[in-house]
Structures are given as structure tokens and as C-alpha cells.
């Protein structure tokens, strides 16, 4: 176990296990993510990275083990409740709402902060002023526009989400996730499908997200990106942690090189 980080633990994973039949997608995983870090999770395909995301966000139930977010157990909460508590994510295979505009997409993210209860949302919908927009609506819109500007998408706010180029769709997913005001953001392969130029841009974007006070956990195959921006890296193979450390340590770790051997990846 690594020592407890100086500036607090954002996410603590204790003995997390997930089986699919006889296959261990995650096997007794221990891991700590320090508040304010960009923490990369890497490993060959099938190592359990996406399963890890699905367990932390509550899409799948864990078999055993505990997930602590800011010191509190999150195991039983539904995904939407975890988002309310401050855990947001993007998806490996982009999942945008195809018929919503770019602006509306980000406003969906802001919905859970403006209306944590369905009853309040219904009340506001029924009793809204007949002309002009409700106060919450304006707050959500302003916040969405600010986030779109942050990602350089402000110009496209009226376009359909599905009409954006691939790289922009990935950015839009991040904007939507940030609109939920998370303190922990899980990015599932944000560089997949991006061209080298866009990936370079992504370096800065993820750092800027961290500088907004959001802890980032990053699953990524682009090793240049991972080594460049990560504060800490955890390496998984077959559901087990095989290494944990700063980028320099990981690059020279024999177990990691072993795991990647045969794959055309330069560490």
C-alpha cells in the first residue's frame, strides 16, 4: 500500500473484486487516488479498467470490497446518486443524446444541481412563467455556456450533439460531465479517436480540469498522454494491480514492461 497522500484521499478502493462467471475482471484491488491529482489507470485490454469505472459509478455492483469517496462509503448508491455526491464520468464509446443540441446536452448535466428532487423539477415545470425563462433555467444556461467556452465549443452551441466531429463529441462529454459539478471525474479513454493535434490539446484541457479543483481518474491507451500529464499511475493486468507509482517509476518497472510485452506500446 502506498502511504496516504498529504493532501487527502479523494477515492479509496479496498479489496474490490468483480467476477463475471469464473472470470475475475477485478481481483482484490487496492488503490488510492489523492485529491487534486490526475491519476491514470492503465493496462492491456481486458485488464479491468472499464469494469473499475462501472463499479465506482455504480453501473455494476461489486462482489466484495469497499469504495470510499472522500472517506465515505458509496457502495449501495445508484449511479445518479453518486453523481449528486460528486462523481462524474465520460464513456469510452461516446454516449451523447443524439437529438439534443450541444447547449441542451450540457444543461442536462446541470439539471441534477438545479433540481436535486423530481418534485421540485415538476413544480418548476408546471409553474414556470409563461414567457421568458425561469431563474434556474438561466443559471443552468449560463453555466453550460461557460463550460462550452472552456472547451472551445461555444460557437457550436446550437448544433446537434450528433453532428459534431468526433473529437468535439469527446469534449462535449467532458463538458456535460463537468456540468454536474463533480469533485472526481472519471475519463474513459478521452483520446480515443482523436488526431495527434487534438490529443496535444487534450493534455492542457485535462490539466485545466484538475486546476478547477477536480480530481481526475484517467483510463487511456495513449502512453505519451498518460506519461505527460499523470501525477500517479496504477497499472492493472487481469484485474490485479501490478504496479503503482509516479510516471518515471512505472516506465522502468519490469512487471509493467512484461505485461505490455508483445504489444506495440512504447512506455
Amino acid at each position, binding site marked *: 500500500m502506498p502511504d496516504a497522500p498529504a493532501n487527502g484521499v479523494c477515492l479509496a478502493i479496498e479489496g474490490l473484486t468483480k467476477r463475471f462467471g469464473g472470470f475475475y475482471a477485478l481481483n482484490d484491488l487496492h488503490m488510492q487516488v489523492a485529491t487534486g491529482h490526475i491519476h491514470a489507470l492503465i493496462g492491456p485490454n481486458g485488464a479491468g479498467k472499464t469494469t473499475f469505472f462501472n463499479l465506482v*459509478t455504480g*453501473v455494476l455492483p461489486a462482489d466484495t470490497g469497499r469504495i470510499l469517496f472522500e472517506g465515505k462509503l458509496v457502495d449501495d448508491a*445508484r*449511479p*445518479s446518486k453518486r*453523481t*449528486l455526491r460528486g462523481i*462524474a*464520468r465520460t*464513456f469510452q464509446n461516446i*454516449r*451523447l*443524446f*443524439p*437529438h*439534443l443540441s450541444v447547449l*441542451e446536452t450540457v*444543461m*442536462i*448535466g446541470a*439539471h*441534477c*444541481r*438545479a*433540481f436535486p428532487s*423530481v418534485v421540485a*423539477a*415538476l413544480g*418548476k*415545470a*408546471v409553474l*414556470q412563467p409563461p414567457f421568458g425563462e*425561469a431563474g*434556474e*433555467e438561466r443559471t*443552468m444556461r449560463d453555466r453550460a455556456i461557460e463550460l462550452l467556452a472552456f472547451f472551445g465549443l461555444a460557437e457550436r452551441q446550437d448544433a446537434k450533439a450528433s453532428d459534431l466531429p468526433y473529437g468535439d463529441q469527446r469534449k462535449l462529454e467532458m463538458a*456535460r*460531465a463537468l*456540468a*454536474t459539478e463533480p469533485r472526481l471525474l472519471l475519463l474513459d479513454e478521452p483520446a480515443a479517436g482523436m488526431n495527434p493535434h487534438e490529443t496535444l490539446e487534450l493534455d492542457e484541457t485535462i490539466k485545466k480540469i484538475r486546476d478547477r479543483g477536480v480530481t481526475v481518474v484517467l483510463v487511456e491507451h495513449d502512453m505519451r498522454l498518460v506519461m505527460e500529464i499523470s501525477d500517479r499511475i496504477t497499472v492493472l493486468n487481469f484485474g490485479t494491480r501490478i504496479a503503482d507509482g509516479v510516471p518515471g517509476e512505472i516506465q522502468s518497472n519490469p512487471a509493467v514492461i512484461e505485461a505490455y510485452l508483445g504489444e506495440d506500446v512504447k512506455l
Partner: protein
Amino acid sequence: MFEGLLDGYTRSLLIFAGINVIAAYSFYAPFKTGQVSLGQAGFMAVGAYASAILTQKFGIPFAAALIFGGVVGGIVGVAVGFPALRIKGIYLLLLTLGFAEIISVIVLSWDYVGGAQGFRKIPFNRYTLDYVIAIIAVLLVLFARLERSSLGRAMDSIHQDETAAEAMGIDVVRIKLLAFGLGAMIAGLAGALYAHHATFMDSTTFNVMMGVEILMFVVVGGGSTFLGPLVGAAVLNIIPEILRALRDWLELLPVAWTNFYPMNRVYDFLHDFLDFENAKRLIAYGVILIIMMIVRPDGLLTRDGLRRLSPARWKLKHA
């Protein structure tokens, strides 16, 4: 209202068309969150029987019975909505279809409400048209507001990608239940109105075909905008009347124009074709559905289409 203006036939026509519009909105509410129900006729039956028991057996005024019908429909809707949360697509269709069948069997075997004889002598409510108009007005305002609200947008997001919506902190469970319950409540109101206009119903009144027709209204009108159900139900209720009027007009033609070959054959064919009753109506619905699926799968009205027509957009373009 309108007593002097409308003859009995037109009144009755408008009432049934209006009840269909309300039923279309009962389908639209859950559909907004992506839940497709073939069981809305079942919820109409719940509302119809619940309200008719109050008025016929206990002499309670119609207005109170109407509200009761809606409330009971809504409660049953939430009860059915819970298992419906877990299933999607074709399985949800089957669940709702099964629910409607269960209701019909209960009604058939329950002697208190007439059993196989049917529920007779339900008090006739002569103000049904007023109620229908008022409820449609309320529904239009409600769904128009929903469409421009954050909750409405959240419902759209659930329809488009439930997993992503849940990950964005949208309370998918509660919102889907709310939508399903709201739809069932609206169906209950429609059923109560139906019962007190028709004054008779039995286990075959609210049948599978009615559930299919209700779905058709929204498919034809368009499920992406709140105006779709209104337009769909109106169009499908008006088409038979237009055909009927054409047929009447055809019969007014001078005999001298049509009593020779080939005009007599043309006349017979048209006269037959425009006879839009029962079985033929179903064939026509089938044909319309197939054509719609090919030509306009999103229905006559779509939200994007309406946006393009909106004055603000037009001004922007032509400034």
C-alpha cells in the same frame, strides 16, 4: 357549451375524437421517457370502471367520479410502472399488453360491474364535451410547459440514452415512474369520460385494438413534440369523416353521369372505397402506419421541423 351549435352526431363525434386526443396524451407521457405502452386502454378501463362505480352505484356527482377515475388510474399506473422500470422495448410492450388483458379478464369475471353482461346504465353526462375541451386545454398547457422545462429535457435525455442520463445525475427511476403514472392518470380520465358518454361498457370495450389505436395517434402525429398527439389523434379521427363526406357528395351526383360504362364502375369502386367502417378502417390504419414508417418515421410533426418554422428562426435567417 355549444348545445345550440352542434347537432347530436357532430357532438358525439367531437367527444370521441377528444377522448382519443386525451388517450393519445396518456401514451405520450411515458413515451417521453422512452416507455412504449400498449396498455393505455387498460388504464382507461380502470378509470372508466372506477368512476362508473361511483356514479352508478353510489350516486356520486360526475366531476368527483372523474377525478377519482384519474387518481385510481394513476395509482395503478405507478404499481405497474415499478416492474416496467426494469424492462425495455418489446418486453415492456408485452408487459403493458398483458396488463390490459388482465384488466379485461377481471372486468369480465366481476359480477358487481356486470360481468359478461357488461356495465349498463351508467349515468349519461351531458357536459362531456365541455370536460373534454377543458382537459385537452389543461394537457396542452402542461405538456407545452414540460417541453420547455428542465424536467422535460431530462425526460428527453432518458428517452435517448438512459444510461448516460443516469450517469449525469438524472433520477431515471423517479422520472420514469412519474411519467408512467401521469400517463395512466390521463388514461383514467379518458376512460371516465368515455364511460359517462357511451353509458355502456364491457370487457371488450377497452381492448387491445384500442391500445394499438392510441399508439397510432402518437406515431402518426409525432412523439417528439407535445403537439404530435393532438395532431395525430385529430387527423386519424377526421380522415373517416372526410371520406364519409366525400361519399355523401358522391351520392349527390346526377344519375345521368354515372349510369353508363365505364363511369358506373368508377362510381361503384369509389362508393365502396369511401365506405370507411370497421374492418376497412383497420386495413387503412395498417396502410397508413406502413406508409408513415417509410416516409416520416418520426411522425407528421417533429420538434426540429417546428423549430424550423418558428418565427424567431425565420427572422434570424431573413434578417
